[in-house]
């Protein structure tokens, strides 16, 4: 299987070399470049900087709006937040780097159609701390490997997350508890990330860890037969059960899929 990240690799190298400014657009997100360096990234699945800053109570939504009104047209919103005294440079940098690498992961590491680059486009946020494209690419590949080493079934990334009902007696940290509380069988990891104000990738890692630990119902994925827990880093998941007894039994109806369809139909609009 070809790594999806490596597909855009030649284009990123060329854009770095020619110190390009503009936006690289793929199916699941976009990378903004200035002088060949990545300054921002956006992806539908990843919460934006405003969500991360405001949902934790770090920044009031009206202060975010205010900075956009004052500096949006000049493409200096990030700087304006610091000038207005709502954020320190350090906070802004750390939070923005988290969103940049988060959105870049979904942009680069998701199987995608065409990749386009539009020269001259800049983002209204303005540069904060530029990152070399090679670093962004390496980090995205590392993230793919990390996810696969935790639980090599990507189905849980996009399926609604449902916690198992019998968790009594199991110790759960507050961090995981917050996620499990939202795992109602309707919300997907991406929705949960937005509600908690956490990066989407961090939520994916946590969801896969919860699946591996048996805290959530992972029947949407392909759980390994007992005694065959995934362990090897980057192992490719095998869809075929290796136990002959399992192989011979008639295929079970995909109850998880049926349930998801029913829930989707019944979900309030």
């Amino acid at each position, binding site marked *: 299987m070809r790594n999806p990240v490596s597909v855009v690799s030649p284009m990123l190298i060329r854009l770095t070399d020619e110190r390009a400014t503009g936006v690289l657009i793929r199916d699941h997100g976009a990378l903004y470049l200035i002088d060949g360096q990545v300054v921002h990234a956006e992806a539908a699945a990843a919460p934006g900087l405003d969500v991360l800053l405001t949902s*934790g*109570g*770090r920044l009031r939504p009206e202060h975010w709006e205010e900075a956009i009104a004052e500096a949006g047209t000049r493409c200096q919103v990030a700087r304006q937040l610091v000038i207005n005294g709502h954020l*320190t*440079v*350090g*906070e802004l*940098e*750390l*939070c923005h*780097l*988290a969103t940049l*690498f988060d959105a870049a992961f979904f942009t680069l590491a998701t199987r995608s159609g065409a990749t386009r680059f539009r020269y001259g486009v800049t983002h209204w946020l303005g540069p904060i*701390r530029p990152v070399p494209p090679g670093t962004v690419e*390496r*980090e995205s590949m*590392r*993230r793919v490997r*990390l996810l696969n080493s935790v639980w090599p079934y990507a189905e849980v990334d996009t399926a609604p997350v449902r916690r198992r009902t019998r968790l009594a007696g199991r*110790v*759960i*940290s507050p*961090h995981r508890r917050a996620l499990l509380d939202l795992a109602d069988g309707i919300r997907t990891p991406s929705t949960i990330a937005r509600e908690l104000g*956490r*990066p989407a*990738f*961090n939520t994916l*890692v*946590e969801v896969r860890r919860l699946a591996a630990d048996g805290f959530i119902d992972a029947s949407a994925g392909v759980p390994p037969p007992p005694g065959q827990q995934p362990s090897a880093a980057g192992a490719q998941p095998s869809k075929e059960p290796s136990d002959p007894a399992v192989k011979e039994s008639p295929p079970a109806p995909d109850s998880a899929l049926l349930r998801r369809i029913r829930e989707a139909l019944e979900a309030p609009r």
Partner: protein
Amino acid sequence: MANTEAALKEATTSIEGVLGAALVDYTSGMALGTIGGGKDLDLAVAAAGNTDVVRAKVRTMEQLGLQDGIEDILITLGTQYHLIRLLRGRGTDGLFLYLALDKSRANLAMARHQLKKIESQLEI
């Protein structure tokens, strides 16, 4: 605080014997900022690997039912100290500072004291 780089720079200048330092996101294992390091100490690799160290300890504490938090973790090698300090603050949803020190030059007590000070300056 000034910026991430300045805070890390202060860590390396105010603490004797620092070989490298990194500010790491503990869920993703990504280094959000690094200083020092080099071919003998790849800080990106150290960041990802030490995430597992922190996770293992957190997990053990959960299993033991300890209702407490980790302040720091010290790993003593033959020639180095590796110090991990977990950051807690308003928005710090799992960050830690990782510090590699030269054992022959470092003063461990001073290093821990300085690290605490830098943490308060980071106020993330």
